């Protein structure tokens, strides 16, 4: 790691957004990650996405596990409460936080070690439950913080710095997320802001479990010949299936779309996704199609990026649980404590 202080993110102006905040309000402490680390690019994209959506920073809760990736919430949204929890367990802490207050936006940041190995179970179950969150895996195919051990997303046949070859099958997080019922699944590349920022914005506006696998090269341990996740490899192999823009107005849903045109998807919560469909054969509302597409292109050694799947009528955990619209953390005695009269009746039933 380098400990050279780098300047805060560059921005053209200190213009205020609709929340009355400047971009600076969405930044955090200065990053202590390695210069050039993909994770820092993702932090910058997060800053931009929240700024552009004019979301007041304090209405966001950012949670993470342990790893270089999980350290990043310190480096953005300084006015938000953050929680750096334990390795692989961000999903449960986030789930509990969401249970307590359904009104905040929950941003979960994790790494591939954090989510595909030690936390694979929590990743899976939080997705299954439809927790309303943006779940980002900053995927570098390696354990950065513990210095270069292999992760479960590392491709078969890739080489580690010490030269040994990975013989285990890789876990494809996006396919898993789709299978597990995430209602928004995308993959992007940390260096491709054009794609990443709109995807983040769409994920933020999505009311359900939104999962983002962001390929994020580790310059210290994974950017060498033989690794299938280094910069050049990704650039060559990325195949952008689509591009999307987020719109704030509530337009009608356009379901059918000819190749090369713009598709707008309006979700019941008011979000409108504007999709530019670049791939001839891709429809992000077709779950089986997405899995098939991933499988076919994966077999060719390609990483598919873009919005892979979106459910236009997502259901979130609170809908499943049937909780009141008021956040549970503001309920008081009147709503929570049944009182002495009820207790007397309970006593009577126990005699």
């Amino acid at each position: 790691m380098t400990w050279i202080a780098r300047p805060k993110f560059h921005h053209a102006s200190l213009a205020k957004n609709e929340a009355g905040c400047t971009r600076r309000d969405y930044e955090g402490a200065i990053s202590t990650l390695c210069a050039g680390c993909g994770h820092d690019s993702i932090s910058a994209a997060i800053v931009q996405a929240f700024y552009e959506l004019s979301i007041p920073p304090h209405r966001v809760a950012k949670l993470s596990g342990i790893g270089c990736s999980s350290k990043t919430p310190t480096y953005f949204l300084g006015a938000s409460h953050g929680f750096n929890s334990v390795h692989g367990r961000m999903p449960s802490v986030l789930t509990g936080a969401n249970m307590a207050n359904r009104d905040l936006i929950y941003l979960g940041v994790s790494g591939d070690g954090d989510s595909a190995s030690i936390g694979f179970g929590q990743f899976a179950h939080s997705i299954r439950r439809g927790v309303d969150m943006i779940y980002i895996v900053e995927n570098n195919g390696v354990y950065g913080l513990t210095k270069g051990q292999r992760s479960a997303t590392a491709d078969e046949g890739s080489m580690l710095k010490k030269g040994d070859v990975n013989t285990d099958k890789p876990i494809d997080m996006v396919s898993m997320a789709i299978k597990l019922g995430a209602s928004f699944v995308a993959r992007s590349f940390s260096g491709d802001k054009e794609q990443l920022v709109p995807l983040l914005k769409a994920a933020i506006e999505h009311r359900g479990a939104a999962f983002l696998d962001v390929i994020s090269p580790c310059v210290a341990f994974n950017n060498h010949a033989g690794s299938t996740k280094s910069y050049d490899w990704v650039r060559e192999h990325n195949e952008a299936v689509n591009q999307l823009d987020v719109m704030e107005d509530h337009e009608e849903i356009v379901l059918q779309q000819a190749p090369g045109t713009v598709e707008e998807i309006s979700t019941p919560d008011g979000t409108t996704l504007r999709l530019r469909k670049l791939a001839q054969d891709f429809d992000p509302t077709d779950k089986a199609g997405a899995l098939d597409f991933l499988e076919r292109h994966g077999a060719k050694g390609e990483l598919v990026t873009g919005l892979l799947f979106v459910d236009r009528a997502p259901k979130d955990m609170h809908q499943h649980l049937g909780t009141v619209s008021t956040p549970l953390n503001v309920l008081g005695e009147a709503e929570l404590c049944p009182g002495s009269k009820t207790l007397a009746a309970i006593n009577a039933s126990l005699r």
Partner: protein
Amino acid sequence: MPKLSRVNDFVVKFANVNGSGSASANTLFAKSILRMGVPVSPRNIFPSNIQGLPTWYEVRVSEQGWLGRRGGVDLMVAMNAQTWDADVAEVESGGFLFYDSTRAVPTSKLRGDVTALGMPLTALCNERYKDARQRQVFKNIIYVGALTELLGIERDTVAKLIGEQYKGKEKLLQPNLDSLDLGREWARANLPRPFELKVERRDAVKDRIFVDGNSAAALGAVYGGASVCAWYPITPSSSLAEAFQRYCNKHRTNADGTKRFAIIQAEDELASIGMVIGAAWNGARAFTATSGPGISLMQEFLGLAFFAEIPSVIFDVQRGGPSTGMPTRTQQSDVISCAYASHGDTKHVLLFPEDPKECFDMGAAAFDLADRLQTPVFVLLDLDIGMNDRLCAPFAWDDAQRMDRGKVLGAKELDEGRAFGRYRDVDGDGIAVRTLPGTHASRGSFFTRGTTKDRDAKYSEAGPDYIENMTRLQRKFETAARLVPQPVVQRSKEPTTIGVLYYGSTSPAMNEAIELLAAEGLHLDAMRVRAFPFHHAVPDFVASHETVFLVEQNRDAQLKLLLTHECQIDPARVISVLHYDGTPITARFIVKAIRERCGAAVRAGAGAGKGSGHGKVSR
């Protein structure tokens, strides 16, 4: 052979096969005695199995109100051929054996000093009912009929209970009453009358309620304002979360069906405690219910909650060790693993309820304590109080009572310019001020981490910052000792130099033992420890008695370890009385252990007592 002859003071044990429908019939039997105004304490002894294995239900009838397990059996209801020999052997000399005589039992299988009461139960049942399932269900009610008749329990009392049970399901009521009467009539005509064991109507139950500790603790959590529960099924704690669900469905559901609570059955205990921590960090009162293995899995997170100072409540219904089998038996064996749960220098607040009433009280108070202290609080039940119905004082609630949410700064205080430093000890009690996510647009946000921080929650790996934080946490723990429930002292009638310490479910057996020993001239002062950290009264009690016993239900004297270590007491000053075979401790066991040890000490002035029974006495 002299037969036992007792009124309102005996033990009936039912030996059944689990899954046979005996559980509800046996509860009906116990409750009908309660309705006669005579205290009972029933206990389930069950296998880790759903169907086909032996299960027992032991009912102690005690007009005097002793609710601990007595030991020994006066009337065995032997309904399980698999366990026949052991069941027959367990009956006290002069006692009684009630069994199904449809098939003749050879005299070699009976005992000369035990009166056998055969009833052709299967034959009677098969004659009356043609359907196999009816035969199975009603067979149990028939024997309850025969036994209640035999013991002199009024028919109307039993019938009324059955009526309450099948309220709204009237179709089932009459057939149940018919089989009850079938049993009663047969007993009247065929069993010896008058019978030596009798239930006579009294008014010794008063306004007490009859409930299991898990339900009581769950109700405490409802009253205490818990709105988030995350759990993973494990005996003997599952019924706590399930009771919370039941009470919430009933008392926290709006007219439109929306719920003022959220419960998740998580994928494991790690996720359960993670959710509790997340919810509590975000300002909801949250808890989990688990048992020893779950506590083991939660260790890492419990450390995080301690260091990050997250108010969380953990109900640990203790059982035997790992795997299945013993785990469906009772023990107090998680004291150490909870007190020092996790890595790093951690110490946790523990509460020890003695009965369902205290499960309710502490179940509610735990949330105030957790919020006030911003730390995990453990409520340590065990299978004995958690899963058995126990007679106890009625639950009480003061409607004027308000939740103590502790030191939380809201938007108003932040707007007024109140200074905020997450880990600053502004009041000198070690407890800092916290804020909740989403409170204020520009003030009061902070980043929650385990250890690596300074007093303003900024990332810091500096040694002095770490030490400052750790000494503050120590100070906070001293504050905790003043806030947790104080120990309860019971002074002996005669002056004495002997003291005994105990906690949790040992209470009823201990109370009885104190009286039995006093009758022998051995007087004891008793202190019931109700919480850790220990109030100074606890070491003071040890210091002020020449001989001090500590009674617990584990092998390693876990509370003694905690007490002697934390209060710097010479371990030789405290004599352990340890019971750990998985059955609830009895007054007989305690009396024997203390009598041997004190007898020796009093008579010879020295020497340790010999181990006895299922446990041991050791220094």
